[in-house]
């Protein structure tokens, strides 16, 4: 059994699996630890939005880097994870919100994200199934969606093929530092050692950072997801309602085999003790109301399943990403606030670059854990 590596990655979600993959490609020996199975929590239960539009401008360079990886998935990891670059459309019910979207489109251009504003007439012409109440839309023709259930596991398998040692069902019970080495106690596996430790443990990341004097106000919530029966493939882009009102915030996408995946409105309760997250029945019924509003044809469709998962959030809606401020050799990438899926492979690439070379060409300063020490 492998007990020592150049780097140990704790947490086998999309961040950890892709970081391990890129580290192995950079020639490092890596152990990837996962307390359950790869990609079971936030990485596997999210909506599957592969979108750049709407992200904070400071996150667009990271998002752009991720997009390049998404486009090369078959070449890099041997499968496409059902990534469909079919566009991402934001729509709004009010002039005021349309102006905000338009302003964002102006600002995003400088970051290489070219968005197309659509009038209500243009919306109707291109997407006749959408409500006539919509006043405007904004299309990112390069956006799209992918299957979250497949993506992190696919990165995990590719990482193993690239030489990573993956231990699933292996919970870290203690971490210490002896000299240059991190020493991890792992249930059922004994002691593992490495000079580099990357924490990509999602909702469980805060417990580990706290061991090194870096507490973060991490909260857990669950997305409120549902899927319809399969229907003829008609809805091409991922579509989301842009609004300042939480209850109006719904989004949906149709997979080529026909099912429509939908979600939005409030977040539900989730626990990093029981690993379970609940779909709130009232929220679900509210989603249906809003979905019928944005696409009246939904009234003729059945939902066959709802689900949630354990996501982690920080109060400033930004992740923790970068080196530790207290401990050399320690790195973090967790707390992606329900918006980590698209940037996931980019996060993996950036963390691998940071660890392998000591620096990264992608700006991630706003996400430093040090911001919570102030």
């Amino acid at each position, binding site marked *: 059994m492998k007990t020592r590596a150049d780097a140990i990655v704790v947490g086998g979600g999309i961040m950890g699996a892709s970081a391990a993959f890129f580290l192995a490609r950079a020639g490092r020996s890596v152990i990837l630890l996962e307390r359950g199975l790869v990609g079971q929590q936030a990485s596997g239960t999210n909506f599957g939005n592969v979108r750049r539009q709407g992200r904070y401008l400071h996150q667009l360079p990271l998002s752009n880097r991720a997009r390049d990886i998404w486009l090369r998935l078959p070449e890099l990891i041997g499968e496409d994870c059902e990534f469909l670059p079919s566009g991402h459309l934001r729509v709004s019910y009010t002039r005021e919100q349309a102006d905000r979207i338009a302003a964002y489109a102006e600002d995003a251009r400088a970051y290489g994200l070219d968005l197309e504003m659509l009038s209500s007439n243009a919306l109707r012409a291109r997407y006749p199934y959408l409500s006539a109440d919509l006043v405007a839309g904004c299309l990112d023709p390069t956006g799209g969606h992918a299957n979250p259930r497949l993506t992190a596991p696919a990165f995990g398998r590719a990482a193993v093929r690239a030489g990573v040692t993956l231990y699933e069902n292996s919970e870290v019970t203690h971490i210490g530092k002896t000299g240059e080495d991190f020493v991890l106690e792992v249930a059922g596996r004994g002691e593992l050692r490495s000079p580099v430790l990357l924490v990509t443990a999602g909702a469980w990341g805060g417990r580990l950072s706290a061991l090194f004097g870096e507490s973060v106000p991490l909260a857990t919530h669950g997305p409120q997801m549902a899927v319809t029966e399969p229907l003829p493939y008609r809805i091409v882009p991922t579509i989301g309602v842009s609004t300042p009102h939480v209850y109006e915030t719904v989004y949906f996408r149709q997979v080529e085999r026909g099912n429509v995946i939908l979600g939005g409105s409030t977040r539900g309760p989730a626990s990093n003790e029981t690993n379970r997250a609940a779909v709130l*029945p009232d929220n679900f019924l509210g989603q249906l109301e809003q979905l019928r509003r944005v696409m009246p044809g939904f009234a003729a469709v059945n939902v066959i399943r709802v689900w949630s998962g354990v996501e982690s959030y920080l109060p400033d809606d930004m992740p923790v990403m970068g080196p530790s401020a207290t401990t050399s050799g320690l790195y973090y990438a967790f707390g992606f606030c329900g918006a980590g899926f698209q940037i996931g492979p980019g996060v993996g690439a950036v963390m691998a670059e940071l660890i392998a070379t000591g620096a990264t060409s992608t700006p991630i300063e706003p996400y430093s854990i040090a911001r919570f020490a102030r």
Partner: protein
Amino acid sequence: MATSGMRAVVVGAGPAGMRAAQTLVAAGIRPVVIDEAGRSGGQIYRRPPEGFVRDAETLYGADAAKARDLHAMFDRLRDAIDYRPDTLAWNVAGDMLHVVTDGVADALPFDALILATGATDRLLPIAGWTRPGCYSLGGAQVALKAQGCAIGRRVLFLGTGPLLYLVAHQYRKAGVEVAAVLDTAPFAAQVRALPDLMVRPGFLLRGASFRAGLQAAGVTVANGVVPRAIEGGREVSGLRYRIGDKEHHVAADAVAMGFHLRSETQLADLAGCPFLFDAASGQWRPDADRDGRSPRAGVYLAGDGARVLGADAAEAGGRLAALAALADAGHAVDAGELAALRRRMAMLDRFRRGLATAFPWPADLARSVADDVILCRCENITAGQLRETASAKGAPELNRTKALSRIGMGRCQGRFCGSAAAEILADARGTPLAEVGRLRGQAPVKPLSMATAKGTRP
């Protein structure tokens, strides 16, 4: 503790649900009774729509008197209960049951939730089973009972379990040509089960008379059948099967198939009831004591939805579950009645063991399904895709397999494919059946229209 204010909800209006409601009413409670069907009766005592004229003898045969009594009893209860037909219980969250009636949602708070959700056919894939003309045994029976329709002109009955012979008998009596009755269980198993089955001589005799009647009418009735393929083009034309080393073929334009029954346990799962693996049947069931009391406070289980013991046990189980709920709420219950019901359940449980011996689930048949056969009908996933997910993608248990392959992810949520998927996965992984686990229930329990409107809150 005062019981008059006890909020009791019964899900299901078959024999278990009806008896539970009656017992609660007798104790001064006004329960809500949720019925997915338009009329009470459940599956076995299903009533045809209003205006249909066939009498109870035609519909229920030897059970006509029982059916008439139950229906009359429940009709008399109507003013004493809050009966909600055509209502889907789609979710349980906390101590609230979520239902939809006529497109309007409602949330029912409960102190006691009695789940009498019944069972559906246990199925396994056979090459060609997705052809039009293939029905489940239960489906074939419902068509006849509720609508007076047969599933074909010359119908083949395939599978195992008491329902196989009963439905074949009912079809023959209704004037439908029975192509054959093909039982996967060896005849020796049925002989071996006799000591347990003898606890209900009348029931045993009736089963034997169905078989004898079919044979006397010239119908092939065979045991130890290994089905090979349901053949045909766009429709069923027949079945190729084997007995021992000998290949056979029988022509038919419809197939009714089922391998005994499986409990409907999704609501118990959503309510948070713990589940146990039952090695005898190879199935998981919600844990409950002998009265139907689950370890999840306030949730009780009755009838075939808890364990498949049949209609008579469902009546006793419905009473017991209601008495358990009443006792837990501080109500005095009749110790004599409780003891008598428990004795009856113990006897019926021995009969259930006999049935399990006589009509074993053909696990080997499920495990040997060819790679190209569609296993998950909703999502169009083959047995081969499941095996590939188990090996190449390393899925160790059913929910992971579902996530990676879509098996059991469709509108039936694994009701059709779940039993066989567990066998194939366990076989591919080389692990005991219990270790591959069970598909977790997810709301909505049945497909829910997106037109569903928020209802009034209590």
